[in-house]
């Protein structure tokens, strides 16, 4: 479904993403792990169009999407969350999640070239029955999505996102991504800053999404969660892919242990794991 070939991004002298190949099949969940600064988020930015690769290709559902704008990719059904929780602070929870459904708005985005934006403005001001109906339906869908988070978000549906706890902001982000009805979902550290209970909830949710057939690319530091959820794990270090395979295999790969514990220390690490 998604495949990356030789994807490379350099910042000055630093190669943040170095010739990455990756293939993701429909319904698969692949986790990307690696130490901080390994290039995981940059890779996400390249896939979602927020950054452009210096070399390499991204294809999605058979089409080349390299260097397309994030707007186009969202319309193609690629949804993502951000590492630092980029919610719209002054928008309510409801509005945040409705923005996720933006690409699906039909009645207010007439497919007429050139004067399309003006018609959109006109429809937004006049709001005929079809527009109202669509908006109502979307609001119902948003409530259904929020219900997946139990009582975490529903009682706060009209509160501005800046007033939410850190964990709730992460949840809003995921709800927003789900409102896109994504064909591919990229989750960037969904459990960052969450306590064990909250992490377990999130793990259950991601497992549910996977069971529903959603294709997911996950960046995560909590290995327990990675091991349980992933079909395959990819390990990145200094921009390169250093290991790939089932979680158990990757976990015991000496190169991975070295990347995590620092070069030159791996001998000690092996002794410790033996002991």
């Amino acid at each position, binding site marked *: 479904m998604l495949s990356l070939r030789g994807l490379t991004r350099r*910042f*000055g002298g630093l190669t943040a993403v170095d010739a990455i190949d990756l293939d993701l099949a429909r319904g698969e969940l692949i986790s990307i792990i690696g130490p901080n600064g390994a290039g995981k988020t940059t890779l996400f*930015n390249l896939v*979602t169009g*927020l*950054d452009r690769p210096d070399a390499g290709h991204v294809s999605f559902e058979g089409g080349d999407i390299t260097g397309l*704008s*994030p*707007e186009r990719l*969202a*319309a193609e059904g690629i*949804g*993502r969350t*951000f*590492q*630092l*929780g*980029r*919610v*719209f*602070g*002054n*928008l309510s929870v409801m*509005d*945040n999640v*409705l*923005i*996720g459904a*933006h*690409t699906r*708005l039909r009645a*207010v985005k007439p497919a007429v070239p050139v004067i399309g*934006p*003006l018609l*959109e*403005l006109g429809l*937004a*001001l006049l*709001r005929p029955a079809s527009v109202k109906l669509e*908006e109502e339906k979307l609001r119902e869908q948003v409530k259904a999505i929020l219900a997946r988070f139990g009582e975490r978000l529903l009682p706060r549906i009209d509160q*501005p*996102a*800046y*007033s939410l706890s850190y964990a709730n902001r992460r949840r809003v982000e995921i709800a*927003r991504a789900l409102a*896109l009805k994504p064909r591919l979902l990229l989750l960037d550290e969904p459990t960052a800053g969450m306590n064990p209970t909250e992490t377990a909830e999130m793990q259950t949710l991601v497992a549910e999404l996977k069971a529903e057939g959603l294709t997911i690319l996950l960046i995560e530091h909590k290995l327990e969660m990675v091991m349980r959820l992933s079909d395959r794990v990819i390990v990145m270090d200094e921009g390169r892919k250093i290991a790939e395979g089932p979680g158990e295999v990757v976990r015991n790969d000496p190169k991975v242990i070295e990347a995590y514990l620092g070069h030159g220390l791996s001998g000690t690490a092996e002794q410790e794991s033996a002991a």
Partner: protein
Amino acid sequence: MSSWLDYTINGLIVGNVYALVAVGLALIFGVSRLINFAQGSIYLVGAYIGWVAVVQLHTPLPLTIIVVAASAAVVGLIIERFGLRPLQNSVRIAPLLATIGISFVLDQLVMLTFSPNPRALPSQLPDVRFQVGGGTIGPLDLLIAGVGITSALLLFVFLRYSKLGWAVRATAQDRDAAMQMGVDVNRVNQAVFGIAAALGGVSGMLVGMYYNQIDTAMSLQATLKGVVAEVVGGAGNVPGAVVGSLLLGLVESYGVAVFGTSYRNLFAFLLLVVVLVLRPNGLFASARQAPPEPLTGTFIAPSRPVRIPRWALLAATGIFAILPLFPVSFYVLQTFINAWLLGMLALSLTLVAGTIGQVSLGHAALLAIGAYTSALLSLNFSVPVGLAVIGGGLMSAALGTALISPSFRLRGHYVSIATLAIGEIVSLVILNWESVTRGPIGISGIPPLSLFGYELISPTSIYWFSFAVMIVLALLQGRLLGSHLGRSFRAIRDDDIAARAYGLSLNRYKSLAFIFGGFAAGVSGGIAAHLYSYINHETFNTQQSILALTVVILGGLGNVVGAIVGSVALVGLPELFRIAAEYRILIYGIVLLLLVRFRPQGLLGTM
């Protein structure tokens, strides 16, 4: 040929002066990511202190320079300490607004102290010209070049070899890391503001001597030119600012040589817009930068808007609608007519600056486009005035949006610079396009307002007309904000990167916001043209843009009711207290400063 050499020398000298301003701007941008709109005011203060020293105290030249540099530095330190340091943990827009407020306060203080009339600032150097090649050069040229080169060298030594200079460079590279390593960022800011102000003040004095004239209009021009030079060189890049300044000086000088004096500024601003569009990081930046760091929802102050019950709004509307039926004086009606016209402009700006976060400083240009279109339609094509005003609104929506569109790819403070420059370009085009706009003479004899053939001449009918138009625009805007467009605009303001990742095209929605807002502003300008019956290129100036911005912040960014409340407050209260006109702008500046400091969400809260 000789004249070309003269133009080159003139360009380099003027460029040297710009460099003194631009280097200060670059230093400040480097350490605090802030475009200091008060830099031109310090330049103005420097020029007037120079005048006091030369004309009143008869100080010798070296002492004059020292006095000017020292007093300007003190002004810079005061600005840093009391204007900006309290805003350190504030939202991104706050320091920018504060420097705008400071600039207005300083300019007005100078104007009130010295009167707005131009003064002569005699050069203290002998008036001789030396032949150099085919051109001539005077001692003042040499002095300016000397001051420029000396300051550059001193600054280089300071930044390269002194401990504080290291701290400045470290802070410019990574403020947080510098703080972690024990750098006193407040001291760095102080040093930078002091140096920038000293350079700016000396520069103002030198320019005053160069043209042997100083006046209070110098301030805005200097800020604009300094910012142009700085942005051309790459914001925060000190050597780049010097090169950008010299380039700007030459472009202007050659432009004047070919096309004439009235085109001087047009070239500067066109250069700015071209650079911003083609190389937004300046001429010397590497083409691709790392993506900007994530910052969420920090653009405006988070707040819960004050909910005003519907009946209260209806009651207020009703009271104002029947106001002319009571025995009120024409003067009161006139005041409210002004408030309604400003209200339309504020509605437009609160949408653009508040709802979608594009802090436009050139909003008066939209008034001008609307006013000229409506005036010319009714005069040249005998279009009925009612339709002509709508035509003005449509033209402002279309042309205004097209003109501002180069700024759509910019972020944060750059948007303000670009819109300021675009506003100036509009005013300069009006001045120079004589065949259509009648140039500096302006347009007179504009027919009065009329509706369906009935002329609206009595203050009562004009009151009702402008009030009704404003209410209709406000209702439309409220309806817009309640649609999916409202939340899309606000999402783009809060986090444009996340917004794009969810399919919101920035160009599309910024265009729609400017189209809608441009219409309201154009209608306001159109009505104003028919009320004033005479307009020229200065009728709609930057002061009105700033007044509108103050109104919008007073009411609460993005807040429709707030825009109207703010307009009534800022137009009505000075009238109520019979404050003389020359103090009003000072008061607007102070209001802006106090708001930013103590109630950034405005009276009714941001939306």
